[in-house]
């Protein structure tokens, strides 16, 4: 078997603290992402998702461990890895349009002004920003509009790997849906690989091929890799009728509500730090236990599962 497109090996991040004990954000995190795969990562706030993403982007360095993309170790940032930052990171003295052309110019230094403008407008229109709004400064745009500019900037450079840190967090449900569809459309029409952080379980199921589940920090780990084998194209309205949907959903919600904490408390000290472990692959949709929304809970530790976990309405992690 040839090497995966993106390989993360035994990544550990520690922040030294002058007085007391070092803060170990995550430890021995290892996983692979194949070319063209769409992978989401879910975990509670502060477990280190953004930090992992910054290491993948080459903006931050891990205390130990390695990231390999396309057979080459990631040592610094690259135009092959486009980033949508959690806080948008738009340049406030440039208009929305100029923020996008900034990226396009960096990617295609040989292009003419017209080519750069045309390409930038294409992506701005794709995220629904046109008709004058593109000439405004970020401070004159709403949070959701800023996020869309940031998305357009990252997509417009057409990187091999898209790194998205909660890219839809500030969007209303309608825009969020539109841009999710756009993202899927861009992604499926290209060779691009996507790694996305989200807090929204339903969004992850709708978009991802695989969802990585992180335990709570400190000493966070990627505990499971949940395969979403719901056939594509997926549709927001129809996906909930898929027989595997609630099994997956319940599995995720249960992990976040109970097991992420339980697993964090039982740190496996026995298997030494020498051998990097890949997270266990789980396919909740094919679990042996019954079917239908009510019986989705898999191998959870508690028999008495709390009632709200199986309620079918959208549930987000951030209350």
């Amino acid at each position, binding site marked *: 078997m040839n090497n995966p497109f993106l390989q993360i090996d035994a990544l550990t991040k520690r922040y030294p603290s002058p007085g007391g004990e070092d803060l170990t954000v995550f430890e021995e995190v290892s996983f692979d992402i194949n070319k063209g795969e769409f992978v989401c990562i879910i975990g509670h706030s502060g477990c280190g998702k953004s930090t992992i993403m910054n290491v993948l982007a*080459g*903006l931050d360095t891990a205390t130990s461990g390695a990231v390999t993309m396309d057979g080459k170790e990631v040592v610094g*940032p*690259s135009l092959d890895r486009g980033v949508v930052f959690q806080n948008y990171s738009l*340049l*406030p*003295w440039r208009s929305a349009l100029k923020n996008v052309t900034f990226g396009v110019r960096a990617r295609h230094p040989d292009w003419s002004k017209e080519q750069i403008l045309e390409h930038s407008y294409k992506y701005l229109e794709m995220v629904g920003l046109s008709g004058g709004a593109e000439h405004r400064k970020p*401070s004159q745009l709403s949070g959701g509009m800023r996020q869309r500019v940031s998305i357009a900037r990252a997509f417009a*450079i057409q990187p091999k790997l898209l790194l998205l840190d909660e890219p839809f967090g500030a969007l209303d449900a309608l825009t969020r849906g539109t841009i999710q569809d756009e993202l899927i459309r861009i992604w499926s029409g290209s060779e691009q690989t996507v790694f996305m952080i989200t807090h929204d379980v339903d969004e992850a199921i709708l978009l991802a091929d695989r969802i990585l589940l992180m335990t709570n920090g400190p000493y966070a780990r990627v505990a499971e890799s949940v395969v979403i084998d719901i056939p594509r194209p997926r549709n927001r309205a129809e996906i909930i009728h898929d027989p595997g949907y609630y099994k997956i959903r319940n599995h995720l919600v249960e992990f976040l509500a109970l097991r992420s904490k339980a697993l964090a408390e039982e740190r496996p000290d026995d298997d030494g730090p020498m051998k990097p472990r890949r997270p266990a692959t789980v396919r909740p949709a094919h679990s042996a236990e019954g079917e239908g929304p009510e019986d989705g809970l898999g191998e959870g530790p508690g028999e008495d599962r709390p009632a709200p976990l199986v309620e079918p309405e959208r549930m987000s992690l951030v209350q």
Partner: protein
Amino acid sequence: MVSSLPARALFLSAVILVVTLGIWELSTPAVKAAGEMTEYEMLMGGADQEARVPPPSQVLERAWEELSNPFYDNGPNDKGIGIQVGYSLFRVLTGYFLAAMIAIPIGFLIGMSPLMYRALDPFIQVLRPISPLAWMPLALFIIKDSEASSIFVIFICSIWPMLINTAFGVAGVRKDWVNVARTHELGSLRTALTVILPAAAPTIVTGMRISIGIAWLVIVAAEMLVGGTGVGYYVWNEWNNLDLTSVIFSILVIGVVGMLLDAAFAQVQRAVRYQE
């Protein structure tokens, strides 16, 4: 009366001006008889019209005379106010732009590199509080030219605010913005020009504005010391001529020119400002 705040402020300013000038005009004593003069007044030229503080009407008259022919040149001790202001502006702007050309790049370096910051900090801390005029003897001795020496004094006094503000602005550029440049693989020069410079520009221009203000303060003193030409020399020369009307007139000119310089930089500040 219902009117906007600026209109009311303007009205109040006019009232204050008229009242102040009125009091000044009325309180200026008439020419005294010789018997009433103090010893000092005798020394200062006795009943000479010029030896007392002139009323505003006289100053206005003088202003009208001077401003209607600002560029006349009747030899070294009698030049029009326009020529004198021109000499001063030339010195200020030369010294100032030389300072900017050095302060802004070095400020960039200090702001980008914690090592350079620490290495250069002690020098800056010692040199900065030195009064620019204290450099004058040394400058005259080394440069041996009064013109270049006054330019040097302007240079040395305007360098610090620009240097410190540039370093401060550059060091304070948000890491997120630098990361944007990094993820787009911009080289260090492109990063400096397209991200760090615009991000730090408001702080840098504030430093430039402070510097030009200080430079204009210092040039008057420097020209009084060095003599020859310039608005500072003009003030001193008129004082030696005991022409207080001209002294007051030139004080006003210094104020107005300083205000215009400051207003120009306020305009630049407005142009580079951005909102996060």
